[in-house]
Structures are given as structure tokens and as C-alpha cells.
């Protein structure tokens, strides 16, 4: 693809990155299975992300102005690089499928119970496809509004609940056994934070990648703080119940009741979730379509959007039957799978380039 330069303010990339990491995680906060220690797992995984971020950054310093796929081909040669690139593309579209499945599953099991999941999925994917065809610029432009509203809604719900929270649940502060915490921080690392590898494939369209990288860091900081807020809010409100609730944030909002006037705020949460997930889904969607176009040197990605949408909707329909399955997948399968594209391949590429770079220079 002849790369279209996309003119965006740095701020907007920050917001996109933040929303990308918040995404569906806002509804199913990370590490809920360990209840009151969730914040520890979140912090550990954020530390992990900082390491990962420096790896990404170092890689981009070795190969400036290159996109992910170019870097892969540079490091591993043409055919192996192509294979790895295809693997990344699979990962992108797979992640998109997961997000859509999460969305549809939530809506179908909580909000619109009798509507067939097919209809909901098609509706969601169609609206995402609309945005993707409008281009990444349009997606990024709406990000500031969505971020501001979402974070303020989350904060508002927190304020509404201030008389219902009790901080005693956070005692004892340190857990007696650390292994479940490390395990769930692994899944938190994989679920929102590590997924930022996607940005490596679109950063070169946004100007100089090395200059765009700090936006990712700032975005992740916003995401980290907001997620921490949500996690703490949920645990403080629901206590241990958070471990067993399918959608804790939703349950939390159901408890809001201020003088019978501001009550039943759960729809705020759903809309919130929708807005954030929309950014994440469209970003994944865009990166897959533009990635295919880049890899096969197409002139435009736009006509790929609809067929990909059909494939994604159908695949997401078949993804999960129950939330339990989803949670098991996130805890047991997903982190191990995504460790490969998020860390291992990138690290390999870095090492190869480093070694080779020394040979050359």
C-alpha cells in the first residue's frame, strides 16, 4: 500500500492508546479472580509493560521509520519474515474476533437477551466497518471525546458509590501466596498491555515512529490509572463477590442509588464500555486491513473491510458459549498464545538486528 500519512496530534495518539488498553477491560476488570489483590497484579503487569515498552522502543531505534512487517522481513529474511508477518496478521484479526465476541456476549447476556447474537454481531461489526472505511484519522478524532466521557463516567460512578465502599477489604495488604497473583498478572499483561504491539504496525503511518512512541507510554499511564481506579472501585464495593461476578463493573453500577433520583446507572457502564471497545475494535480492524494491504502491496485497504467483517462476525459468533469459557480462555490459553507475538518474536527480531547491526557497522 502506498502509505497514507495520517495527520494527528500527539494528544490523539495518546488517547487512542489509552482507550485501546482500557477497551473491554473496563467492563471485565483485570485480575478479578484474585479479588482484593487485583491492584497488585495490575501494578506488576504494568511494570512488565514498561519493560516491554523499552524493548519496542529499542527495536524501533534499530530500524527507524520501519513498520512492523518491514522490520520482520529485515530481521528474518524474506520468507521467514513473511511467515511471521502473516502470523501477526492472524493475531490481529484473532484479537478483533475476541473483542467482538466479548461485546456481543455481554450485550446478549445482559442487555438484549432475546436478540440473536448474530444480529448484534453484524450490527456492531457493520458500525466498526463504517469507521474503518472512513480511515484511522476519523477513529482517532473521536477518541478524545470518548476518553473524557468514559473516564468521567467511571469517576462519577465511583463518586456515587462513595458511601457504599469499604476499604477494609484490602486488608491484609500483602497476599499470603504470590503464585496466583503472578499468574493473573501474566494474563493482565497479555490482555490489555501487551496488545499494544498492534501500534508497531501503524505507527509508521502516523509520522516518525520513534517520535510517536512516547504517546504510547502516556496513553498506557492513563489506562493504568483508570484501570486501577476501576479495580479498586469494584473490589471496594463488591468485596469478595467480585471474584464470582460475571461483569463486576456492571454489578457495581447497579448498586448506585442516590435519593432514588440517580439510580440504576448500569446503562452508563454499558455505553461506556461500548465507546471504549469501539476504539479498540476499530483500531484492530484497521491495523489488520491496512496490514494486509501493506504486506501484499495493495493500493488501498478499503475494499477489504467488508469481507473481513463477515469473516470476523461469523468467527466471533462461534467463539464462546459462556462467560466461564471466556474467563478460562483469558486466564489459561490467551496469555500463553500471545506471549509469542507480543514478546518473543519482537525480542528475537531485536537480537537479530542487534547482532547483525554490529557486524555491519
Amino acid at each position, binding site marked *: 500500500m502506498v502509505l497514507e500519512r495520517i495527520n494527528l496530534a500527539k494528544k490523539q495518539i495518546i488517547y487512542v492508546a489509552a482507550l485501546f488498553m482500557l477497551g473491554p477491560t473496563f467492563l471485565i476488570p483485570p485480575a478479578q479472580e484474585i479479588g482484593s489483590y487485583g491492584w497488585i497484579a495490575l501494578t506488576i503487569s504494568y511494570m512488565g509493560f514498561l519493560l516491554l515498552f523499552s524493548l519496542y522502543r529499542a527495536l524501533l531505534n534499530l530500524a527507524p521509520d520501519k513498520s512492523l512487517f518491514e522490520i520482520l522481513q529485515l530481521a528474518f529474511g524474506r520468507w521467514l519474515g513473511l511467515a511471521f508477518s502473516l502470523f501477526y496478521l492472524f493475531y490481529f484479526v484473532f484479537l478483533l*474476533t475476541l473483542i467482538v465476541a466479548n461485546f456481543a456476549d455481554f450485550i446478549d447476556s445482559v442487555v438484549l437477551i432475546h436478540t440473536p447474537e448474530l444480529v448484534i454481531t453484524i450490527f456492531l461489526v457493520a458500525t466498526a466497518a463504517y469507521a474503518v472505511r472512513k480511515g484511522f484519522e476519523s477513529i482517532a478524532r473521536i477518541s478524545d471525546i470518548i476518553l473524557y466521557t468514559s473516564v468521567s463516567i467511571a469517576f462519577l460512578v465511583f463518586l456515587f458509590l462513595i458511601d457504599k465502599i469499604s476499604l477494609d477489604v484490602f486488608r491484609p495488604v500483602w497476599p499470603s501466596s504470590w503464585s496466583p497473583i503472578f499468574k493473573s498478572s501474566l494474563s493482565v499483561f497479555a490482555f490489555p498491555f501487551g496488545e499494544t504491539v498492534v501500534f508497531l504496525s501503524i505507527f509508521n503511518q502516523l509520522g516518525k515512529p520513534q517520535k510517536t512512541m512516547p504517546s504510547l507510554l502516556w496513553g498506557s499511564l492513563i489506562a493504568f490509572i483508570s484501570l486501577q481506579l476501576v479495580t479498586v472501585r469494584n473490589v471496594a464495593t463488591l468485596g469478595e463477590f467480585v471474584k464470582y461476578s460475571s461483569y463486576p463493573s456492571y454489578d457495581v453500577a447497579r448498586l448506585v442509588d442516590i435519593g432514588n433520583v440517580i439510580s440504576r446507572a448500569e446503562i452508563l457502564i454499558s455505553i461506556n464500555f461500548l465507546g471504549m471497545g469501539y476504539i479498540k475494535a476499530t483500531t484492530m480492524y484497521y491495523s489488520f486491513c491496512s496490514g494486509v494491504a501493506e504486506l*501484499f502491496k*495493495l493500493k488501498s485497504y478499503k*475494499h477489504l473491510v467488508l469481507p473481513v467483517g*463477515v469473516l470476523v462476525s*461469523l468467527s466471533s*459468533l*462461534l467463539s464462546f458459549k459462556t462467560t466461564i469459557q471466556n474467563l478460562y*480462555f483469558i486466564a489459561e490459553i490467551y496469555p500463553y498464545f500471545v506471549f509469542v507475538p507480543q514478546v518473543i518474536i519482537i525480542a528475537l527480531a531485536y537480537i537479530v538486528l542487534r547482532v547483525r547491526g554490529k557486524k555491519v557497522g
Partner: protein
Amino acid sequence: MAYVGILIGFALLFLWDYKEIKEVNDKRGNIVYGIFFLAAIAYAILFKSGVVTISMTQIVSLIVAYLRGIRLPYYFR
């Protein structure tokens, strides 16, 4: 009936894309588009007929479970 519906739906999608395709006029792009489009049709028909119930999630689950040497819980089947 449902199959007719699927085909009509895809015809609509194609019509929608047609303008874009013509505008871009990219041979390689058309091939890639064709692959995706046919794959989508095939998947939709197989999905409808219930032959295929496999999704990317399940494939990934099976592979990872095999590599990690764990047994998938019953609800994955």
C-alpha cells in the same frame, strides 16, 4: 431460503465494494479481495449449514492446550 438470503447479502456487499474496486483499479488488490470474499461466502454457507462450528478461538485453544499439555475443560467442546 436462508442461503438465498446469504447470497443476496453478499451481492449487496459486493455492489457496495464495486465502486471502490473500480476506482482503485488494482489487480493484486482484486485478487486479495476475491480470496477474502470467497472465503467469507464459504464460511457463511458452512456456518449456516452447521458443518463448521470451529472458530479461531477454538483452534488457538486446542493448539495452546496441546503445547502446554493441559486438558481443555468440557465447556470447550
